[in-house]
């Protein structure tokens, strides 16, 4: 599929933007999943939203494995911080995910490929799977609730 999408086109550069706050150990999971991509991202921008915890160890672990950049945004507030990520990102396509997520190996490739089909495609979304650890009732509620919430209008497609 890669050959097909590269046919005579300028290659679209992919930047992954991740916002994080005080969860370096979760971020490490996500970054690990980004090192195993069938189409490696051109850039991974991590915006640290004024964390108290240090991300130094995570950064050192992954800076050799990924085209990783970390910036600190002191203003707290997710939309604002995501905009900072957009400003920092140099890619043609900006992929968003969260620090408590993990990407499938084909994630970047599958997200970027549709953009080659048509210049009119402005946004691509993928499937989100919820994982429940053997956890608390509150977590069970969140998973059950996301089942109810994630459903979309089927007729929309």
């Amino acid at each position: 599929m890669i050959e097909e999408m590269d046919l005579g086109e300028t290659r679209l550069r992919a930047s992954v933007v991740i916002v994080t706050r005080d969860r370096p150990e979760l971020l490490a999971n996500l970054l690990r999943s980004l090192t195993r991509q069938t189409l490696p991202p051109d850039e991974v921008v991590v915006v640290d939203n004024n964390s108290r915890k240090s991300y130094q160890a995570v950064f050192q672990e992954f800076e050799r494995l990924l085209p990783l950049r970390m910036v600190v945004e002191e203003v707290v507030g997710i939309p604002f911080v995501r905009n900072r990520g957009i400003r920092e990102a140099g890619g043609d396509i900006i992929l968003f995910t969260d620090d408590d997520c993990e990407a499938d190996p084909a994630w970047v490739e599958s997200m970027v490929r549709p953009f080659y089909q048509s210049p009119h495609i402005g946004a691509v979304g993928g499937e989100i799977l919820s994982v429940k650890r053997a956890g608390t009732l509150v977590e069970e509620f969140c998973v059950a609730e996301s089942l109810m919430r994630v459903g979309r209008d089927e007729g929309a497609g």
Partner: protein
Amino acid sequence: MIIDITKSGYQKGYLAKEGVGAFHPFFATANAAFRKEALARVGGFDPQCATGEDVDLSIRVAKAGYELWFEPSARITHYHRYTMKGLLKQWFDYGRGHAYLFRKQLARPRLQLYRRDRSGRKESGLDIACVLDCPTPIHAMLFLSSYHAMHGAFALALAARAFSQPALAAAALGVGLCFGWRYFGNPLEGGVRSLALAGIRYLADGAYVLGGVLGGIKERVIYLEATRSRPQAGDPARRAKPRPDRRSSLLAPGD
């Protein structure tokens, strides 16, 4: 570890660019990609959104003339890690954020009353049916469910009692208990665990409604919504079935 596969219900391909009533297709930022040029054209995320900034962005990108494409093979796994305090804060923010978004995205002030089918089954045809939609001086978005019916009936019972109307008070109390039963479920059927989940749901709904009312006061919009159906305890196999018939509102929060 249990993996619940929650299918979005979108089909692979282009999504409708127009919303239906208060429902608009969107991509949660846990798994979404945008052309940088499209982000530049619409000005990125709206920093005023407490939550739902992803819904808002999807709507604006679609309005700017871009297509939205759903790609089911692009999969992200999300690990839920919430404490009770975090949960309540999150749901309070959902309420606040939704009030803001409704005010922002719906141009003309209207009263829109939605009736939700608690079972979430598509064949009922009532899930997203807007049963009342008329122009009013200010926006009113009411998604009524057993949560509101239960409280409304109990409030009526108290009022009737205060005005010495014992028959009305008893009737309203009965109606309230019926909706309470629907809301909390049958404890004999689901056991303690399901009752505890219903309790968490009740607190989350309380935070949600409070956020919606306070956000609504600020935005001059009347916004009422609560969860639609009981989270099911126990049997993960039953829960893990994809439910493409679920529909979520324009403002259904991403996690």
